[in-house]
């Protein structure tokens, strides 16, 4: 309180009364007067001091109150924001060409004499059927192949259409081979190139040859890396990454070169740069007998649900009998499951016959992470007849909590009759097939039926209402119609060599399959993968 002149409270109040100390005045005044003046001044000063104190107190209380109000307001009141929204433009990409690449003719490592075991050699030429809707199909041959037949009709064929609304294209090839040690029937659909392909199938144990073919139908070189998983987990080997696949080239690689002696491989092909199409070709030689050939196409990406449509069982009794032969263990129908995740998951496998009232069966499979698991397809059936799965068409459904991959293999063989000698028994005519899971159809789909025995289109309806699919035969032929019950499946024989436009098939899973005791095969019907959707760009 020592410096009143500095005080806020002074504002508006007269300055201190200094004139009364004027020496001349004081000198003239008598002592009494001076005394009175001093007293008056003192009392005025006291009153002033009180007033200052009061004002100061008021100012302080006001300030504290204002501060409290400010703190409460800033801390508690949710003030609204106002400003700009970040600008954005939604860009719908210009549609690109549609491309499919086929597998090409069957391949054998080494010539007929067994020499040059590292060199792939083409065996024969597949029958290719292809068709398109809404645009003109252009067909070309891959310019280069490790098999040395680039540009020939046996090399992988590339199908292409210009972009147009509602256009689609499809192709499928089949090939029956019967050379000395290389017998069987193979079929596969031509596939859309992709940067990530999962192949479930094959084996590299003795007598089992698996050849990986990677074709790059795009204009950009692809750097491919492989991941191979087996029953013992991931397989590491040199050369699995940095595989160059130049544009318009097919590379042929022996899976055994990376992963020898693997009973149940699963291969993941990843491409950077150009996109590729990959197939596994498996052939089996049991003892000295060539006993089958198959082309394994891409499985859908790992998902919590996998549906394999159109699994064919023929000559089950005869095949069962052949199992007793030496090295025929892998002729039994199995389901191969791979869990690419990091946690164990339980896959429930359901096997349901198509078009019959018979109840399906189901069984659980523990899928360890990073490990391929194989389970007999009839594991859920209580064996009383000796024949687990009756002849017919089956749908195999697999569900789990986590994404996984799954595929089914079946084998057919002619009856060798009861085995009564200990001497080696000649192998019967036989063949096997891998059935990849069928992707869900996103709309109308074009299905091409390659030549082959007893072609059949099977469809699975995971939905809750019946679906009627029209099979519109392209280029003449009988149109068909198929009712697929809700939650069930149906099949219908189709004409080999015909292309059908499946309308009303949205949401279904469908596959074409062939069955004979020496010619098994099948491939799923796929919609074109969705083109790149619109993207929001913020410039």
């Amino acid at each position, binding site marked *: *309180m*020592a*410096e009143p*002149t*500095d*005080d*806020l*409270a002074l*504002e508006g109040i007269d300055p201190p009364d200094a004139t009364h100390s004027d020496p001349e005045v004081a000198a003239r005044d008598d002592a009494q007067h001076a005394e009175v003046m001093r007293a008056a001044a003192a009392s005025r000063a006291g009153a002033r001091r009180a007033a200052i104190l009061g004002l*100061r*107190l008021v*100012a*302080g209380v006001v*300030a*504290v109150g*204002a*501060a409290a109000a*400010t*703190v409460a307001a*800033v*801390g*508690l009141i949710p*003030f*609204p*924001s*106002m*400003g*700009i*929204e*970040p*600008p*954005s*433009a*939604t*860009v*719908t*990409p*210009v*549609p*690109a*060409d549609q491309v499919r690449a086929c597998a090409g003719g069957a391949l054998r490592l080494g010539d007929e004499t067994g020499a040059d075991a590292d060199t792939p050699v083409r065996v024969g030429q597949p029958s290719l059927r292809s068709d398109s809707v809404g645009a003109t199909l252009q067909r070309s041959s891959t310019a280069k192949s490790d098999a040395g037949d680039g540009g020939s009709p046996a090399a992988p064929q590339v199908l292409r259409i210009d*972009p147009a609304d509602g256009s689609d294209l499809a192709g499928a090839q089949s090939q029956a081979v019967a050379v000395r040690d290389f017998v069987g029937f193979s079929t596969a659909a031509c596939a859309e190139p992709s*940067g990530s392909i999962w192949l479930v199938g094959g084996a590299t144990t003795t007598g089992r040859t698996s050849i990986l073919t990677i074709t790059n139908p*795009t*204009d*950009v070189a692809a750097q491919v890396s492989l991941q191979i998983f087996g029953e013992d987990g991931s397989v590491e080997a040199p050369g699995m990454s940095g595989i160059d696949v130049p*544009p318009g080239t097919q590379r042929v690689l022996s899976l055994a070169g990376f992963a020898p002696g693997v009973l149940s491989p699963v291969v993941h092909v990843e491409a*950077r*740069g*150009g*996109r590729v199409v990959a197939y596994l070709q498996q052939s089996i030689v049991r003892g000295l007998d060539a006993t089958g050939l198959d082309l394994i196409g891409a499985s859908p990406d790992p998902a919590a649900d996998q549906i394999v449509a159109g699994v064919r069982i023929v000559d089950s009794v005869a095949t069962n009998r052949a199992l007793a032969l030496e090295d025929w263990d892998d002729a039994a129908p199995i389901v191969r499951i791979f869990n690419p995740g990091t946690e164990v998951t339980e896959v429930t496998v359901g096997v349901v016959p198509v078009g019959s009232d018979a109840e399906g069966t189901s069984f659980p499979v523990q899928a360890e992470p990073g490990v391929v698991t194989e389970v007999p397809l009839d594991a859920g059936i209580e064996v009383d007849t000796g024949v687990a799965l009756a002849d017919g068409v089956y749908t195999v459904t697999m569900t789990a909590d986590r994404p996984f991959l799954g595929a089914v293999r079946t084998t057919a063989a002619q009856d060798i009759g009861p085995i009564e000698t200990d001497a080696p028994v000649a192998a019967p005519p036989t063949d096997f097939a891998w059935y990849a899971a069928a992707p869900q159809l996103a709309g109308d789909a074009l299905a091409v039926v390659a030549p082959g025995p007893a072609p059949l289109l099977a469809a699975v309806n995971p939905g809750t209402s019946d679906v009627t699919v029209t099979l519109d035969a392209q280029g003449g032929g009988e149109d068909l119609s198929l009712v697929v019950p809700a939650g069930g499946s149906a099949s219908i024989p189709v004409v080999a060599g015909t292309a059908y436009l499946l309308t009303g098939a949205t949401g279904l899973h469908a596959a074409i399959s062939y069955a004979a005791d020496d010619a098994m095969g099948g491939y799923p019907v796929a919609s074109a993968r969705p*083109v*790149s*959707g*619109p*993207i*929001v*760009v*913020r*410039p």
Partner: protein
Amino acid sequence: MQPRVTAIVVVRNGETGLERTLAAVARQTRRPDTFVFVDAGSTDASAAILESARAVPVISSSARTFGGGIARAVDSLGPESPADWLWLLEAGTVPEPAALHRLLAAVEVAPSVAVAGPKLVDPVDPTLLLSYGESISRNGETVHLVDAELDQAQYDSDGDVLGVSAQGMLVRRALWSELGGFDPGLPSTDAGLDFSIRTRLAGARVVRVPDARVARASRPEDFGRRRPAPDGLMHRLARSAQLHRRLVYASGGALIWHWLGLVPLAVLRSIGHLVGKRPGLIGAELASGFAAAFDGSVGRARARLRKTRRIPWAAIAPLRVPADEVRERRAAARERRGGRAEEPELVRASFLGGGGAWLVLFAALVGVAVFWSLLQAQVVIGGALLPIGGDLGRLWAELVPGPREGAVGVSGPADPFTAVVAVLGSLTAWSPSFSLVLLWLTALPLAALGAWWCATRLSERRWPPLVAALLWMLAPPLLSALTDGRPTGVLVHLALPFLVLAGIEARRSWSAAATASILFAVVVACSPVLTPVLVVLLVAWAAANPRGIVRILGVVIPAAVLAAPLIFRQLRDGRPVALLADPGPAVPAPAPSGWLLLLGHPSQPDDRWVGIGQAVGLPLGTLAPAVLLAPIAVLALVAVFLPGARRAIPALAVALGGLATAVLAVHLPLAAAGSEQVTPWAGAALSLYWAGLAGAAVVGVDAIHPAGVLSGLIAVVAAAVAVAPMIAAPLLGTAAVSGADSARLLPALVQAEADADPGIGTLVLTAQPDGSLRAVLARDAGTTLDETSTLVSTRSSVSDADAQLAELAGNLASRSGYDPEPMLQQLHVAFVVVPELSEPATGPQSAVRQRTTEALDANPVLTPTGSTPLWQYERLKPGGSAEPAPSALAIAVPVVQGVVFLIALLLAIPTSRRRRAVRESGPLESDPADTFAEDDDG
């Protein structure tokens, strides 16, 4: 022969002094033989007064000047005789009764004398000499031999002078006629001097008469004016007269040089006025320069001089004032002015003795310790820090309105901040980015220094400024700016104390006002959102100091000039609010809660107590700093109850303004960075908030002396603990900023290509958290700090150019049949970069990035390069679109801005004597600081 004296009294609106003049003339002991009264167009009661005094003859003159009136009167006189004398008087001059007698006595004894001048004295105090003889210096400047001095007969011995004033002059009529009277080109100033010089050159003498006194009410310049002429007008008249005389007196050969030099000299002298803190005289200087250049009266005056001059100039040279004497006189005049000013002494703690120096040293050590990792760095990166671009030429060229980087087709003026960056980069011209490293390393000591200095104005004691310096150095907004990489926040925080200091002084000092104006421009350029509150504070300060209103309000001028082009542009685009957006790169910051703002924390992650709380299992976030910073708030509020409230209340008002601005800022998303809205950074406003809070707290510390030392210590220690996690962040590596050897915005390959082919573009596709894709086209090696623009960051809609770029980007990020080549060529894009995502990335963000990289990999036009996510467009034709040369108008913009800042700088250079600073008072004395006391206008 008896001399005959004609007294001529010229009156123009001189009613106040006319009667006294008439009476004085009438009372002369030696009465003039004839009177002539001249009414030079009076509009007041002068004519009536003349009439009532029966003064005859009255002649009306159409000339409005004193000289003109005399000339008119002389024309009306009868035939001339050699003994005729003219006594020149104007209304308001009051001669003493013996004046004429003594003047005549002086001229009668010396026939060579043609002009005699009396002592012109103050009408109230006749012993005060106002004018008694005039002369000129070597370069022709008028020198008043006597200027308001007490008459102690000190000049009485010396009668001969070069010239005398026209007022009260006694002049031989024959000479008057021969010389043609006063020069019409010299209407008031120097009329008598010039006439005297011509008299001398005609061979006659001019004397001053010591015992003749004439009191004068107004200066010659005030003839006919009701109010005294203001300084500016006086200066213009004096300068015009000097230039006129120079042109008249000059020899023929020198004339052209003098004439050519008029305007350049006026400009140079204007600069001198700026440096001399006399900005009010600049207008007069320039006006007189131009007026002299087109002065039509020079020719006639030269002819008259040529005709009447009989003796050479050299003959009168001894009567001129030598240069050293002129200097002496000037120094004496300054001394007298300084003595008059009676400025209060500035009491403050001394820098060394008061501990300021030690504190700054301590702050420097802390700064180096905290930013240890920057010691060897060439650049500092992170947050909103970008490197500063290449060479100085390009740095300053950014100020020219033109294409802005970061977006296609955006062209316009630069942000004011660009100028700040240019200055900053020029400080370390060899490596502009290094200036930011220095800024980071010196931020703490500079903050401490500024706050200490500023606080010496709030308190005269030794401790409070130290408390202020520590609080300012430990301010959460400063430490946030340093750890989060906000160069604008750091600059604002460092500039604020100096701005406050200069702003307070601005009311009495031009130098301080100019300094404040430059600092204001820096602060507003760095944080435009502060502009409203700072302008309000300035207006309030001006209202409180009406005498300094021009200086205080003038503080905004440089900032306004700097921002004018941007203001014009944003107003034209209808987006005035975008002017408040932060300059520099738009970097989103998680919005802080209101509680955090109250604690001075400008963004959510700055509350680093959260992490410590999680570690020890206590909810320390927000709570710990709140408790630890509470002592400051308590001190600030206590100050209001105590003496010093006059200083504490404005400080708290400043704090409130800063807080309100911070709250406003975080709710004002004015800019966008990809999918995220970006608000102005609240830290700068919180610095203002903190300034007010710390200021009030310091007043409190000062007021509760001697307990203040302890309370201040408690506040400082608690504040230090509160911000300890922030200080530790750079040491622990959790700060956003870090040092680097070189700032690489884009992969090295891009940099190398850009060196070879300047102008190449790089399309930077950044996946956004919401699954959208940000597409930015960067030129050369990337967008640097000087190239950023709020015109780009505050765009609210998609222009055609943006849409084209978006189409290119969207298709490049998709499997598509789009042919990107024409667009890549058009935009001269050589590279596409998809930056790695900073953790944690959202699902859509990863997905869109994968989609983009896959599509780019599959694009046959682009070649993947190296291991970084970089694609090159190899078929790019060299030589991109050359930028058009900027127009003259565009170049004029920075030139004009530069001139304004040069003027401010010249004005800011301290040239006048500074206020005397004395040591801080001892503990027993307790005089208040005079910061807010009424003060004179120096």
